[in-house]
């Protein structure tokens, strides 16, 4: 999808906010937003539907909202989409916020950390077909991506690169965003900087991307 999320190589941005943006979290609400996210993944559909949801935000909001503000808007959308509550419920709740009394027993942080370790999800899939490309092969990316969720950034379309790693078959993001779980061969492809950015780019430099087989011509 050609929305504002596809930022790689876009020009006009200023200095990186290195000092002001050193911390992972700078407000309590950001910590809570992250914690909520960790608890709601089971209610919001696939990881790629989550990512596609961010891409589908109001464009002006995507570019101006702080990072975790975007996540809040997206998770509200995903829960509303899944039928847990409505936009009206959210508007009403925002109006009459009340503090709930905590009930139930909190898990200890030790228990939580133990559960955390099983989150190292395996995205590989067994496929019967053989990979089309081998290490060192030249590959050409497609000129267009479809308007759904895709992980082929605009800057790497219709470009030639070289396969440097084969990862086996992984769940294809494009299908994941539709709720399907299909595997496809996944590669890391290296592109020479001048192939992506023109002759001004430093010929010593490279950019790598993880690309699925259907992204190639």
């Amino acid at each position, binding site marked *: 999808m050609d929305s504002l999320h596809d930022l*790689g190589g876009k020009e006009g941005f200023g200095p990186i906010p290195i000092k002001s*943006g050193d911390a992972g979290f700078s407000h309590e609400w950001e910590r809570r937003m992250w*914690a909520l996210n960790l608890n709601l993944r089971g209610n919001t559909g696939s990881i790629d539907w989550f990512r596609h949801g*961010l891409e589908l935000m109001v464009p002006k909001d995507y570019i101006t909202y702080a990072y975790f503000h975007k996540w809040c808007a997206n998770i509200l959308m995903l829960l509303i989409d899944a039928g847990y509550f409505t*936009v009206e419920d959210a508007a009403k709740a925002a109006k009459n*916020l009340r503090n709930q009394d905590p009930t139930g027993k909190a898990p200890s942080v030790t228990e939580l950390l133990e559960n955390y370790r099983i989150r190292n999800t395996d995205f590989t899939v067994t496929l019967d077909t053989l990979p089309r490309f081998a290490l060192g092969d030249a590959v050409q990316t497609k000129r267009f991506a479809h308007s759904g969720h895709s992980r082929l950034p605009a800057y790497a379309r219709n470009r030639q690169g070289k396969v440097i790693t084969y990862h086996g078959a992984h769940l294809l993001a494009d299908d994941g965003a539709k709720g399907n779980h299909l595997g496809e061969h996944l590669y890391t492809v290296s592109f020479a900087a001048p192939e992506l950015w023109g002759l001004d780019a430093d010929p010593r430099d490279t950019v790598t991307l993880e690309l699925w087989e259907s992204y190639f011509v």
Partner: protein
Amino acid sequence: MSTYDPEKAAQIHRDLHTHLPPDPALRVKTLESLVVERGLVQPEIVDAWVEAYSEHIGPKRGAQVVARAWTDPEFKARLMADASEAIKDFGFEGHATGHLKAIENTDTQHNLVVCTLCSCYPFSILGMSPAWYKSSEYRARAVREPRKVLAEFGVTLAKDVSVRAWDSTAEVRYIVIPQRPAGTEGWDQDRLAAIVSRNSMIGTDRDLDTGGE
């Protein structure tokens, strides 16, 4: 159940934009109150997660992995071959490190990690990413002008050093293994881990500071 309908999703986003006050702190509180009320989340678990990410899950984990790789060749070989497996020695596996790759800086190659399309990051070994990593500026510029970006971070590169920017577009995540600085011979792993900066494991720091020793 999620509908996976992009038209519907975009419409909900527009409705939220129109009907919800834009203050993010209020919005997060709204979300928390709704999911607690609907029984989707236990309120106490939110506090526990906040603590886990403040006290336990952070870049000190990655630094320990790097320090061990510097001092233990057998571990390093396993780390370079399959980082997801190797970090299990420490119990550091978890969120977003199921397909972890370690990439090594050398005298002639510097590595820099970015996610131009969203904000992919190896959370279980580096913790929450810095805000700059998620900024539009970094996402836009790291792939196109990595040398200028590195200069902003104070990184100077020798003439014959190439730069490779790793744009993580799938579930493969990266940790950069910085070079061990000269003058640290004989240091134990704890002392070495203390000089491994978070940024060096993302690639925006290169020559580690040994504290002037």
